[in-house]
């Protein structure tokens, strides 16, 4: 009888699986990802290495010495344990983060627009006191530009009524506002001394969310050639809410990570963060195999650093307010070992 190994489900719940069951999960997940994304599955060697990681009984795991990567960390400076500057100092001095991020709990560019000078002052002060690079981050959150929160009609109400033209017109209007706000805020933070900016969960509201951000990236890049611009995606597939939006002739709806990276590179992004959402009913081994399969093609075309997102609920890290260390560390090691990515 095979030994049962403690492991995690996608929601963080601990279960026990045999080595054979883990092997099967990895294989099935990779094959499903390959079928959906039309990419090759993980090789036999890669699946075997993944199995070794997830079949280990260790409470914690790590990459090999010398394989460490750059961590671009969102959420470091935002008044969780102290002031935002104290939190940034904690991230730098105690947590060993490589790239820090100043952010506000109202984590969207639309909201930050209304308090920009306050955030600029914090950034200017923080830059005097810290050594590690500090970027400013927020989310595009295109849906905030629709009624009742914004000026545009609510396309999620128009679409069920069959008013596709009206929904597309509303998305077009919202994108203009969103791009303007993103350019205004990121430009303001760079003027205040930020080392870079971060567009987090891009594409969360679909292809319009993605396009409005790409437009902002292009404008920011043109004005600030040396600024770091990080763009982290919301999911592995760009949802075609509008359906007909294009970036330089390429339709954005339906793009998987490799194609997402290609348009981001063309727009002027410096750091690209693919994201693959967790399936909570599947094991973490299943989830990481799926994630690796759809992200791996990025590495063949990457001209810029690729930092897969390893926050809660993405790329093999459980959906849990306190992601278990055994699961999160396995995801990190798997991504670095197999993708040879540039960061996390």
């Amino acid at each position, binding site marked *: 009888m095979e030994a049962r190994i403690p492991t995690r489900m996608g929601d963080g719940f601990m279960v026990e699986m045999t080595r054979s069951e883990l092997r099967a999960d990895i294989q099935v997940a990779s094959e499903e990802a390959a079928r959906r994304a039309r990419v090759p599955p993980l090789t036999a060697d890669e699946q075997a290495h993944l199995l070794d990681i997830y079949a280990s009984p260790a409470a914690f795991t790590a990459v090999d010495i010398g394989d460490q990567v750059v*961590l671009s960390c969102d959420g470091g400076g935002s008044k969780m344990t102290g002031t935002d500057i104290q939190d940034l100092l904690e991230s730098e001095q105690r*947590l060993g983060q490589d790239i820090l991020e100043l952010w506000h709990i109202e984590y969207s560019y639309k909201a930050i627009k209304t308090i920009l000078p306050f955030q600029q002052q914090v950034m200017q002060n923080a830059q005097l006191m810290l050594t590690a690079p500090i970027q400013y981050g927020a989310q595009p959150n295109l849906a905030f530009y629709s009624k009742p929160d914004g000026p545009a009609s609510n396309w999620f109400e128009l679409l069920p009524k069959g008013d596709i033209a009206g929904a597309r017109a509303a998305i077009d209007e919202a994108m203009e506002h969103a791009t303007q706000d993103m350019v205004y805020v990121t430009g303001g933070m760079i003027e205040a001394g930020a080392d870079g900016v971060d567009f987090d969960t891009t594409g969360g509201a679909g292809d319009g969310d993605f396009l409005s951000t790409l437009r902002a990236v292009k404008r920011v890049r043109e004005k600030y050639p040396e600024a770091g611009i990080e763009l982290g995606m919301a999911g592995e597939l760009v949802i075609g809410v509008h359906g007909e939006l294009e970036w330089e002739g390429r339709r954005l709806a339906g793009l998987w990570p490799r194609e997402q990276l290609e348009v981001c590179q063309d727009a002027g992004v410096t*750091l690209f963060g693919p994201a693959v959402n967790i399936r909570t009913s599947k094991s973490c081994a299943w989830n990481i195999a799926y994630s690796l399969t759809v992200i791996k093609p990025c590495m063949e075309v990457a001209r810029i650093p690729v930092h897969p997102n390893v926050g809660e609920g993405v790329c093999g890290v459980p959906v849990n307010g306190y992601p278990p260390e055994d699961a999160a560390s396995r995801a990190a090691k798997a991504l670095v070992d197999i993708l040879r990515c540039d960061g996390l």
Partner: protein
Amino acid sequence: MDVTHALAAGMGGMRTAGDLVARMQMSRGMRLKEAKDYVAGKLGCTVRDLSDSYAMEQIRGEKGLGRILDHSNLHPGEPNAMMAKFRIAELLGIRINSVDKFRDLAGL
């Protein structure tokens, strides 16, 4: 979770050369290997040294690049924060936005 990823896979920020390698990724879009090779060349150390807190603590101290400060490791009189960033910009041959702003606003 931040601690988890830092221990599992992170370079270590200012404990090592993580912040320096990160700057090459941010400002020049360098892939990891290229960024590590570049920084190692500028520091005069091996690539493996870049993730070694023992080696980097000494190198950072010698070159005035800023070090982690705690009750057992205090370095008054040594560059840190903005002072260290001036040195980092010069060493790496990059522009650091906050350094330029400081210089402009301080009238230097």
